[in-house]
């Protein structure tokens, strides 16, 4: 194929254009992004996301609805063009090598994208053909995937008759027909019953462990992120506010967390926080209108009686005192200032292809 030589205008534009930012690229990374930005008019859905996901990793994007998770996934999977920034997936550029990326990845989006007039088997067959899976392998591969997602008996029924959980499982199977090395799962277990959720977790772990498949998943579920992910990025208002392994993230808050509800107005709350902060082992303390007072301590058992004594000394009545081990919920709260609310209506969904806001 011949390549058109650049026109005079293009050469001039090249000369006056600002040089593209030079990033140090690691060819071995499964996914990398530099300053990924996506704006929909006035709405800034993603504001400069940097990512480095190693092959074989399960990388989790944790955030509430509207935090920019889905928009980021849509950019990395070539469904949306970034407003600014750059990203490579499987070694290919999302802007110039989108088709090569689509050949290398599998994607199950937040809404199971299915054709309700086809049967499960027909959908997987069409998907296999569009991925150019060798014809002789298609039927065996479909049978295997149907077995994995427990849909063998329903394979020849129309998808319109499937339950929500069955549709999600079929959607996942359709993302796997071509044995991709990188799989994007956007809130894969939302809407699944606990048994289906556990089965899906088991399958993700098995594919990751046995076949070395890289997973990039978004979730609102702390437990899911904790159990599945090697590395987690907490996304808030389109920015990564905290990143690390689950243990590293938990280490950013203290080992123990003490929750207590103090009676009184905001001044009483501030007085309580001021009195608790200087206590031994206390690393941080804050008040939230909904949550009450949260005290982060290196040693909860030592701090707990001191909290009681201090509040008594300050003549501040209190209730609901409890001690807990730090969880990702506490990490999320400390990083974003609010608790994660799965399935909440706190934000807007990313648009389908072609426009809208996220």
């Amino acid at each position, binding site marked *: 194929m011949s390549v058109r030589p650049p026109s005079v205008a293009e050469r001039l534009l090249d000369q006056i254009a600002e040089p593209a930012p030079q990033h140090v690229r690691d060819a071995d990374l499964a996914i990398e992004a530099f300053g990924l930005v996506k704006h929909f008019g006035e709405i800034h859905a993603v504001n400069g996301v940097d990512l480095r996901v190693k092959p074989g990793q399960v990388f989790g994007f944790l955030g509430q609805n509207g935090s920019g998770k889905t928009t980021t996934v849509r950019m990395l999977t070539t469904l949306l063009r970034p407003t600014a920034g750059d990203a490579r997936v499987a070694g290919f550029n999302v802007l110039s090598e989108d*088709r*090569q990326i689509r050949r290398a990845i599998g994607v199950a989006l937040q809404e199971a994208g299915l*054709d309700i007039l086809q049967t499960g088997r027909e959908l997987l067959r069409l998907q296999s053909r569009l991925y150019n899976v060798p014809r002789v392998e298609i039927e065996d591969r479909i049978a295997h995937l149907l077995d994995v997602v427990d849909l063998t008996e329903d394979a020849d029924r*129309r998808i319109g008759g499937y339950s929500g959980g069955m549709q999600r499982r079929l959607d996942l199977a359709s993302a796997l027909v071509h044995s991709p090395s990188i799989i994007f799962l956007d809130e894969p277990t939302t809407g699944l019953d606990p048994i289906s959720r556990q089965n899906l977790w088991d399958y993700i772990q098995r594919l990751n462990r046995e076949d070395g498949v890289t997973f990039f998943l978004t979730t609102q579920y702390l437990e899911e992120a904790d159990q599945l992910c090697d590395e987690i990025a907490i996304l808030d208002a389109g920015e990564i506010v905290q990143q690390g392994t689950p243990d590293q993230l938990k280490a950013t808050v203290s080992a123990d967390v003490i929750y207590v509800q103090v009676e009184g107005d905001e001044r009483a709350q501030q007085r309580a926080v001021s009195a608790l902060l200087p206590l031994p082992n206390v690393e941080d303390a804050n008040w939230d209108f909904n949550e009450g007072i949260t005290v982060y301590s290196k040693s909860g058992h030592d701090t707990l009686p001191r909290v009681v004594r201090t509040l008594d000394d300050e003549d501040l009545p209190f209730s609901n005192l409890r001690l807990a081990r730090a969880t990702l919920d506490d990490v999320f709260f400390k990083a974003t200032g609010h608790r994660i609310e799965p399935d909440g209506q706190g934000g807007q969904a990313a648009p389908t292809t072609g426009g809208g806001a996220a």
Partner: protein
Amino acid sequence: MTTAQPPAEFQTSASREAGPLQVLTDARHLAVRAIRESVRQPGVEITNVFIPLFFLAVSTGAIANFSERGFGVENYLAFQLPVAVLQAVAGSSAASGIAIVLDMERGYFDKLLLTPASRWSLIIGRVWADAVRAIFFASIMLIAALVAGSGMATGVPGAILILVIAGLFGGAYSGIGIFIAMRTGNAQAAQAGFLLFFPLLFMAPAFAPLAVFDDWLRWIATVNPVTYIMEGMRGLVMEGYAWPVTEGGQIVFGPDGLPLTKDPPALHWAFVSLAGFSAFTLTIAALALRARTRAD
């Protein structure tokens, strides 16, 4: 230039490199799926049969006794047959726009965009399926009219040519539905794709010959591609083949700038109009797809 391969560790075990004809292969798979969609919704498709047959029956019933005296058409059922064919085909092809919007709403359109299949195969698959569906619906109109006594001046080859024209018109008309679906993503707007056909139909010699039209309407009809497609089919049903007059290998043009034909109306103008009409509709459909999939 060769297409880059994923780095070794990211190569999938099953997904092969596509060949140059892959876009047609993908389009064929998508066309089969679109046809299956129709077969599984007979209730939706029934209107594409019922409405044109109804119009064929009532317009023939109302005008046939008068048509010979009024404007010299002896066999009005035959005169109306191309109208029924085009109406059935336009109704069937406009439904593609609605099907695409439904795919978008259900997220299946994104799923297709996420495959390595060429974006163009999404359009070609729909156009392909609409051409096949058009031939099917045109066959029903043809059989119904023949049973009712329309006759076919050019016999079986002429009937096959009518089906070919219907298929090409169906493929071309699906471009309008695809364009609306891509631009709006709205089912109601896509539904209006069929309504656009009515001005094209009524500003063509659908119910009476061009000769009896007022000058202004005749002028519009002469720039309406549906006029030539309809007249091309009508010639096959009522008159016979019409070939351009040639002298020394050159086509002879008349005073109106149109080629003279031995036995007008000319079949070749139907194909010229189809080429122009499909070039227009498929170009706007392709541009709309490009705009949607490259949304910034």
